[in-house]
């Protein structure tokens, strides 16, 4: 059983962390679905702790230079650029 029901406010908080701009309707709809889905996930509480082992270890590459993309290729999908920089709104 879920410890705390997930309400629209919680959904909005999570949406902020995930940078998704939900409107109130969406937040409400998701809240209802999440409650059900999370309750289903609660069954994981029954799972015992199990040790894992690693398949692969020490995969590394040599410190050798490889060709980079040229500036045009790097910028080609950007919506806005300026003088070779990616451009976007201010930070704060």
């Amino acid at each position, binding site marked *: 059983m879920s410890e705390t029901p*997930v309400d629209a406010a919680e*959904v909005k908080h*999570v*949406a*902020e*962390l*995930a*940078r*998704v*701009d*939900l409107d109130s309707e*969406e937040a409400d709809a*998701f809240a209802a*679905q*999440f409650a*059900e*889905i*999370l309750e*289903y*996930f609660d*069954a*994981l*509480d*029954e*799972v*015992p*702790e*199990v*040790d*894992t082992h*690693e*398949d*692969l*270890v*020490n*995969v*590394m*590459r*040599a410190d050798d230079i490889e060709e980079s*993309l040229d500036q045009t*290729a*790097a910028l*080609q*999908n*950007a*919506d*806005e650029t300026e003088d070779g920089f*990616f451009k*976007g*709104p*201010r*930070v*704060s």
Partner: protein
Amino acid sequence: MAHNAFITRETIDGADDGPLSGRTVAVKDNISTEGVRTTCGSAMLESYVPPYDATVVERLKQAGATIVGKTNMDEFGMGGTTETSAYGPVENPADSGHVPGGSSGGSAAAVAAGEADLALGSDTGGSVRNPAAFCGVVGIKPTYGLVSRYGLVAYANSLEQIGPIAQTVEDAAALLDVISGPDPNDGTTRFDLAGDDGGAADDRSAADGGSATHPATDANYAAAADGDVNGTTVGVVTDLLEGADDRVVDRFEATLDDLRSQGVDTVEVSLDSVEHAVQAYYVIAMSEASSNLARFDGVRYGVSGGDEGNWNESFARAREDGFGEEVKRRILLGTYALSAGYHDKYYQKAQDARAWVKRDFDDAFERADVLATPTMPVLPPALGESLSDPLQLYLMDANTVPVNLANLPAISVPAGEADGLPVGLQFVGPKFGEEAIVRAASAVEG
């Protein structure tokens, strides 16, 4: 003819000759093709053109294949019916009112409809096997690390593999021969760096390669499609038969009977852990997705959030506009599962469940050479039927997700029809046991 299997039709020629010379291949639209639009079935990437090829695409070209286009898919691989695509649903060539499965629905439909000889899909929780079963074609999900993921747009990077789809087992296996192998650009394929003891090489020149070989290097998957299953033990996973549609079970049992007549022994196998597999899969997949899809902020590519306000506001707008509902749902749930206060309850517990599933499978392979289940517990749903209840959609993955959790290989091979709709049978193999499952599947076919 219009199944809407393709998002972009474009011909990419390969080398003049090679093992795939003269064959056409459709490539799922989450696999990067240089100079050719790659949308992942999303509005977010409607105009995104990668400046590089995925390693598997390079290998296709080197093998002489002709790529004929990028196929339709559930948005970012999130779905089981190809109905979450921003580019419209795909019709199942076997029956147009029904879904082709997903998320690689376009790839499977293209092959089933003869629009391409072969196709590549990706399988995170069943997304190659599911549409293969629903469309009546063959699909393979390789062992994690057999095939390079470099260039595959990540949904859940600890679970997914690119896999071949074809009309026959041998064709699918031949395509696997071409795309598999170690890739310096994908660290998770570097089984060629392991030391002689099978474990880690504590050697300083790890980057230069060790004494082991990657499992694909000496393998010949196509040759394993010889139908020779006399003496093979097939473990039937009873937990995944209960709750399946009777018509599916009937086809499954009939196919097993046929195999027995070819000299196969069957044993019953129970995997207690699979009861929690769907939960574990979704928590892990959604958590990884919430991080893998964070890069879509409109700065370097993708839908832009515009200039107004500050960066955070712009990002949030871009993602609200660019992502569909299922993608948003999984990103939010994944963020939640990883967040402080819930991490231990959900994400950590899901990892424990995953380890449990792996161990269960390891135990099962001590009693059987390959395991068998119906690929899907249901027949292909009608278009539009599955969209109202997300949880019901997730439960459809019950037979396929345990395989991804355990990092094992599996194949779906057509096992006849029920009510005119295709049914698939799934074989699961031990780690790097692709040859065994190819062999078993070829016996079903033959």
